[in-house]
Structures are given as structure tokens and as C-alpha cells.
């Protein structure tokens, strides 16, 4: 397995693609989100697995996003996601609201290759009332129970940040198995990693339960500290100060632009509008 560059990975995600991203507690590739901003991506349809965090807010702020399907957009202890909130109010993005287990269920249906799966709850929620693609049926098993059916969700691209890849292109995500469900469900899987190591995780009984087989992985790029400011398992913690600083700066468009120039472009040439 030969890693590609981060910029080549970002270039391979076409404008308008549906792009599934895990949130801040679940191995987001903030490095790839920044590379997408640098390449000037447009019209992305982001999918929160099952919610959305920092990476989603910066992509929205940079104008890369047309739509978000998610159960929440939040910066955790740093509060509301400022660019998401502003873009929604200004009508620059659409949101398709969901609830966490609905996102998982739709991905699991895609993972199994079935057209839909049932999920309890939901009935009586206005989320359901605004989702014409979700249907309520009476259980065919004669119990009289009303239950919602949700369609399979197959993202065009899934992207996350793993701890490491091996020589065979397997990636290791520890206990964050939602990344495995996501990988199984998506058409393409792009993974940034801290490092590439010799060997094969699938040959190692201790590592294989946290591994995702290369069968599902299209490409790997090395991005050291690629989840930051989000945490990465036991490798590094959540940088609360950085996110609080971002939340303050990104209250205004100008503040966000300044933050981006410093933390995304980092002196590099700004992509053409």
C-alpha cells in the first residue's frame, strides 16, 4: 500500500459528493476537511455519523457545503457551531434533521445491502414529520405496533482519521467501530492516519478487532495530528482551548476568515473562488 498525499485525497472528492464524517469524539479527519477547504470544494452534502462537529463547521464556514444530514451540529463544551448556525439562518445550506440511531440504522441497512430497516421511537417527533423518505407502517407480524422504516443510506465517500495503516492497507480505529459500519456502508472510503507501520493487522489477534480491512479502503494519506483539535483515542486529547478560541473567532464571517487564513491556509496560496 502506497499512501497518497492529503491534497490528492481532497482532490479526489468531487464537488457535490455526499461525504460522511464522524464527529469530534469519533475520529474525524480534520486534516482532510482543511485540505477540502484549500482545494475550494463546493456543494458537498455532509452526513453526520451520527452527529457533526468541528470539521463540519469549518467546511460550512468556508462555503464548501450545500446540505447537512445529521442529528446535531455542535462544538461540545465550546457550545453551538457558529458557522453552521449562521449559514442556516442565511439560507446558504439545507439541513435534513435526524436522530442518532436513525443515522446508524440507515448506514446499517446499506452495510447489509437491504433497502430499509425498522427503528422504534420517532413517531410523534416532528423530525419524522419532515422526513418524507421515512415511512410508518404497522408491523406485519400482527402485533399492531406502528413502527418507522428508514431507507438505506450509502454515502458517496466516507472519510475519517485512523491511528495507523499497515503495509496491506488495513487501518486501525480501536474501539470506534462506527467507522467500520461507515466504511462497510459507503461507496468509497478515504482514511488519513498518523503513521503507516510494517506488517498486517489482520494477522495480529490483538489488533484485528480494531482494524478495518483494506477491502473497504480506497486510499490512505498520512496526516500527523490529523484529528486535532479533536481527540484521537489514547494518542492525544481534545484541545479545548483551540476550539473555544475558534468558537469565539467564528462568531463573525470576518473572524472565521482570519482563523482560516491562520489555521487552514497556514501561509499557503488561497484557492481561487
Amino acid at each position, binding site marked *: 500500500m502506497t499512501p497518497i498525499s492529503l491534497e490528492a485525497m481532497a482532490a479526489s472528492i468531487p464537488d457535490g459528493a455526499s461525504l460522511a464524517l464522524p464527529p469530534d469524539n469519533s475520529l474525524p479527519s480534520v486534516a482532510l476537511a482543511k485540505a477540502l477547504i484549500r482545494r475550494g470544494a463546493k456543494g458537498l452534502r455532509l452526513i453526520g455519523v451520527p452527529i457533526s462537529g468541528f470539521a463540519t463547521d469549518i467546511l460550512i464556514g468556508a462555503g464548501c457545503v450545500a446540505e447537512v444530514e445529521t442529528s446535531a451540529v455542535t462544538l461540545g463544551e465550546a457550545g453551538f457551531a457558529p458557522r*453552521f448556525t449562521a449559514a442556516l439562518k442565511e439560507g446558504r445550506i439545507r439541513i435534513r434533521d435526524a*436522530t442518532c440511531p436513525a443515522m446508524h440504522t440507515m448506514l446499517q441497512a446499506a452495510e447489509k445491502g437491504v433497502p430499509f430497516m425498522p427503528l422504534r421511537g420517532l*413517531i*410523534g417527533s416532528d423530525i419524522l414529520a419532515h422526513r418524507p423518505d421515512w415511512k410508518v407502517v404497522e408491523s406485519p407480524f400482527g402485533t399492531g405496533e406502528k413502527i418507522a422504516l428508514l431507507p438505506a443510506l450509502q454515502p458517496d465517500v466516507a472519510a475519517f482519521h485512523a491511528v495507523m495503516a499497515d503495509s496491506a492497507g488495513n487501518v486501525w480505529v480501536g*474501539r470506534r467501530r*462506527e467507522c467500520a459500519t461507515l466504511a462497510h456502508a459507503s461507496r468509497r472510503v478515504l482514511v488519513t492516519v498518523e503513521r503507516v507501520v510494517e506488517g498486517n493487522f489482520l494477522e495480529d489477534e490483538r489488533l484485528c478487532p480494531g482494524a478495518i480491512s483494506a477491502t473497504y479502503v480506497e486510499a490512505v494519506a498520512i496526516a500527523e495530528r490529523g484529528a486535532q483539535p479533536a481527540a484521537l483515542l489514547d494518542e492525544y486529547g481534545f484541545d479545548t482551548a483551540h476550539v473555544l478560541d475558534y468558537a469565539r473567532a467564528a462568531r463573525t464571517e470576518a473572524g472565521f476568515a482570519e482563523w482560516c487564513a491562520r489555521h487552514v491556509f497556514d501561509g499557503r496560496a488561497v484557492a481561487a473562488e
Partner: protein
Amino acid sequence: MFKPEELLATTIARLIREAPTRHIAVGAASPIPAAACWLCVKQGDPLRLSLLHKRTGNPFTEGSRELFDLTGQGRVDLFFLGGGEIDGQANLNLIGTGEWPGMAVRFPGSFGSAFMYYMAGRTILFREEHSPRVLVERVAHISAPGVSEPGVFRRGHAQALVTGRCVFRFHPERARFSLASVHPGESVESVRAMTGFAFDVEGEVPETPAPTEAELALLRGAVCDEMLETYPEFCARVFGRKAAA
């Protein structure tokens, strides 16, 4: 002397003990409920605590869907939810106000509420801000309903609503709250003035008991130790403690 957060944590801990509780799950951004659960654990209650946002030693090894799968099966006795708006029928709004999807004020979103509220054995609602803009007669949008129609599977309801001013108990059979206790400095009248929904008052309403010295010592010591990694801002603000770098 104690901080308002410490009173709320000990109040929630007492509500946890009111019913048999084997397993509690705590979701996003819930430092006070998490402190209440840790207080019960540190006082020796034999309960299992699954913290969704715990970075090291996270209890879920099958991914973040495992919480919902467990709860769907009935293995979670108690969960916590809040809301940008909560109404008198215990409907929760985490979407926002104004036209859908929250064009006046947008809240972060519904998280797992549209499932967890039905499927957990019971739910303690928690919202520190107690004002007419939060506790409304009718929520603008329902993320998760307080009660469900017949034919919809529902395992549990709200047990209580804890705010910065009082404790309400919820009665699902009549879909109404009653006032259970008022925090120091509050009265039935002051609570009514700050509450947008009608609620029942049955007899004399007691004052919410203050934390004991033993509870405060645990909160500031052993409980804070457990919470530093997940809630560093909260621990710094309430307990004056910072995580080691």
C-alpha cells in the same frame, strides 16, 4: 457554602436513588448529570455508568450505535435529556424556534432524543436555565414527545424535570408536571412567574434539600477526579480544578 451546580448534582443523585437503577447512560454535554451519577457510584451504589463521551475506557466497543442498541433492548434504566424548549407535556425541542428547521433560533439538533426518550427505562430532564423562554406552554417543534399514542412502543417517560429553580415531577398518565420542591430562595409563586406552562401544586411544596458536607467533599474530590478528562471546562469552573497537561 455550595455552588448551584453542586445542589443540582445532589438533587439529581437523590432522584436516581428513588427507583431501582442498574445502568445509567450519560450522553453529550451533561456534566451535572454525570456528576450526579458519579456521586451515587462514589457513595457505593451498585450501578453501571456508561459515559458516551468518555475518551479512555469508553464502555462501547461496537461503535456509537451500541448505546442505542442497548437502550432498544431495555438495558438502560435511566438516561438524561434536556432541551432548548420544554413544555408542560414534557415535549422536548432541540431543533429551534421559528419556522422549521429553526429559522429564528437554531439549536444544535435532536441528538438521540427521538429514540432514547421512548426506550430508556426512565429519563431525568435537566435544564439549568428556568425561564419562560425555555419552559414554554407549547414547544415550537417536537424533537421527542413527552407521551406517545397507543400502538407506539414506549418503555419509559420523564421521571422529573430538574432546573435551576426547582424540581418538577412528571405524571405521564395525565401528561402534566407537578412541583416537587423549590430550591433555596425560590417559592411556588416565583417558580410560577418564571414558568411558561401550567403545572400542578399538591399541598405544601418543600425546599430542595441542600447538599451535605459529605456529598460536597465527594463532589469536589473523587467525583471531580473522574470528570476531569471529559469535562475540563466544567471542573475548572465549578470545582476550580484543572486537568494535568
